[in-house]
């Protein structure tokens, strides 16, 4: 199955009759006039625009790109689909992908040319994540992989006489308390508790994993209330909040991007967030007071495990330009030209973790990461990254979204830890 079944393709385009009448040449030019609509959430839209332009120039594409704010991206895209608009290629995060596949919004990619080769190139964990719930089909190409890491503000720790960054959560709490006591920082710790899908819940899973807790059982049911590790993590969060070690504004931030910008100010000592944000923090002196390399990465406290997940490029099931859309999707999420152009760009420009291991053999990429992070340590952290399977459940996106409020209540002490964890379990039950 390496070529598109022509009949299927023409049928999908609704043009088989026209093809019979006009012959292939006419069809091809008619198709070339059809633009590819492409939407993604806002993350470095200028970069995306640049490589879309590159694709249009180099590959004669007609891609029309549109960026949608992260916090409302998935509902907006669903609304657009329901309104009958066909966006041919779309970003989709892991929490929503199954919902989209399940409801026929996006199509499987296994039958498209070149897919088998990409499957071989992908890291096994990422390939597993790329498959639909029943494991039968691949429904997305990787945009990037994310792992949570611990970052620290080296000059601030030095100023406080702290020799090494925290290795355990207790140490991190002690350091933070000391920094606050010594008036070196108002709120020394900056966890990514933002209000969107990329904040509180990935941070929750990371900290629970690092405490050795399972949030989902083998059948993907939530068992947070039975895990002492989860309770430990939440007790710690409550304490950090109550003792004023955390800037409470973080709870109302609407993206991880917004959250990490707080760390730029140099007013915080520790920050936990997606690994790639260290690149702007430690690598962009024009923005961040912690560049160059005044912010560093340390192994995640506890057992070192953090939450790992992959975000996707998906193809609309109703696309009328399948061939072109697939070509563009391969340009984005695969290796259209043998140079991994977009995948490589994301490593170089944004420091995104990548689902294709061979990226890390590329000297240019190694050099680029060295400018802002200890790449060896980052790859070690990657190995300890722990994915979940529950994201493939159809209820997951709603659970993931509604759970934020419950966890925020735990953090703020408006709910006790056992009560909050029970609520998480109950929430999942009510949706399943």
């Amino acid at each position: 199955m390496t070529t598109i079944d022509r009949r299927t393709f023409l049928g999908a385009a609704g043009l088989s009759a026209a093809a019979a009448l006009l012959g292939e040449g006419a069809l091809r030019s008619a198709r070339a006039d059809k633009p590819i609509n492409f939407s993604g959430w806002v993350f470095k839209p200028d970069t995306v625009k640049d490589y879309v332009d590159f694709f249009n120039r180099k590959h004669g594409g007609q891609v029309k790109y549109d960026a949608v704010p992260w916090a409302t991206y998935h509902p907006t895209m669903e609304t657009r689909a329901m309104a009958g608009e066909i966006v041919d290629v779309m970003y989709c995060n892991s929490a929503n992908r199954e919902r989209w596949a399940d409801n026929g919004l996006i199509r499987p990619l296994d039958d498209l040319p070149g897919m088998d080769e990409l499957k071989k190139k992908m890291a096994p964990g990422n390939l597993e994540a790329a498959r639909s719930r029943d494991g039968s089909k691949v429904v997305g190409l990787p945009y990037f992989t994310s792992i949570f890491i611990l970052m620290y503000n080296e000059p601030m720790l030095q100023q406080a006489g702290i020799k090494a960054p925290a290795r355990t959560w207790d140490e991190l709490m002690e350091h933070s308390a000391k920094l606050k006591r010594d008036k070196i920082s108002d709120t020394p710790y900056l966890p990514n508790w933002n209000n969107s899908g990329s904040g509180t819940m990935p941070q929750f899973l990371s900290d629970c994993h690092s405490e050795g807790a399972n949030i989902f059982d083998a059948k993907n049911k939530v068992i947070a209330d039975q895990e002492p590790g989860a309770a430990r993590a939440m007790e710690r969060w409550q304490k950090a909040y109550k003792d004023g070690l955390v800037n409470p504004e973080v709870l109302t931030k609407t993206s991880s991007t917004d959250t990490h910008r707080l760390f730029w100010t140099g007013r915080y000592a520790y920050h936990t967030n997606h690994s790639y944000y260290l690149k702007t923090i430690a690598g962009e002196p024009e923005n961040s007071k912690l560049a160059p390399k005044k912010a560093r990465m340390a192994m995640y406290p506890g057992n070192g495990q953090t939450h790992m997940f992959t975000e996707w490029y998906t193809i609309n099931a109703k696309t009328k330009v399948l061939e072109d859309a697939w070509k563009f999707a391969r340009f984005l999420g695969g290796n259209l030209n043998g140079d991994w152009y977009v995948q490589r760009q994301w490593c170089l420009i944004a420091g995104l973790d990548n689902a294709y291991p061979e990226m890390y053999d590329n000297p240019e990429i190694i050099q680029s990461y060295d400018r802002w992070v200890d790449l060896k340590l980052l790859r070690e952290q990657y190995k300890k990254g722990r994915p979940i399977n529950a994201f493939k459940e159809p209820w997951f996106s709603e659970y993931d979204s509604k759970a934020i409020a419950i966890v925020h209540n735990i953090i703020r002490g408006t709910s006790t830890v056992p009560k909050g964890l029970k609520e998480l379990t109950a929430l999942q039950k009510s949706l399943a």
Partner: protein
Amino acid sequence: MAWLFVGPALLGIGLVVVFPLVYSLWLSFTDVNLLRSTGPAVELWGMRIPLFRWIGARNYTQVLTDPLYWDSLWRTLYFVGAFVIEATLVGFGVALVLNERFPGRPLMRSLLLVPWSLSRIVVGLLWIGILDFEFGALNGLLLRAGLVDGAIAFFKEGWTALNVLVSVYMWNQAPFATLLFLAGMQSISEDLYAAAEVDGAGYWRRLWYVTVPALRPIVFLVLVLATVNGFLMLDLIYVLTMGGPAYDTTTVSWHGFKTSFTFFKFGPGTAILYTLTALCLLLTVVYHKLVLARFEAEG
């Protein structure tokens, strides 16, 4: 004859208000799945309107047994109460000031319309510029004056956030109340004041015995309008808090909005919104009884 004049507008309102209202009511009794959108439909003037599956009052029972609904309702009642009181008192107070004679009074009356004429999106935006933890002007001023040790996080606690919402909305809406009060004050007969002054009544006594009683109908009007506006407020929540932290600023209208347009559960969503509609209908009756009837009677 009258119908020729009224007809087009009523027909238009029927099409754009009554029909959607009825259809939404229908939706609140069905099992809407928007993504798939299969099931029975009705052909109406050539368009296919999906009817979905009738499931009785199940959406309502689901919504009304969810503690989140009741939490939102109590929160809404607090929000509305606080907003009505603030908007009325501040609106009245400002009207008293603007009713005094001072140079530049016409200019002040124009300025009155500025907060009121802004889109609530812009209202939220400009208050972010003032209240933000990092770059807010108010925090900057307080820090600089040495009045606080660290910046104040206005949206940290649910309670503070809710009250900030009330005050920001009040800033936007109170000027309209002022407008109404001023109009009322202008129409009070000068003789009443003169008579009161002859009786030796000072400023505050005149205010209490002449101004306030004369403004009673306007007070009612302001109260009812503010109540309805309080119940319906949505856009400020969108810009300022998104219903958070946690659910602490989630009102019934925000709850209905989220359910309908974030999770795309139109069934429960319309059910939530319909309970709000019922409340508004109730208020209309009150409004009618208290204000409209009075004026109709006066002719």
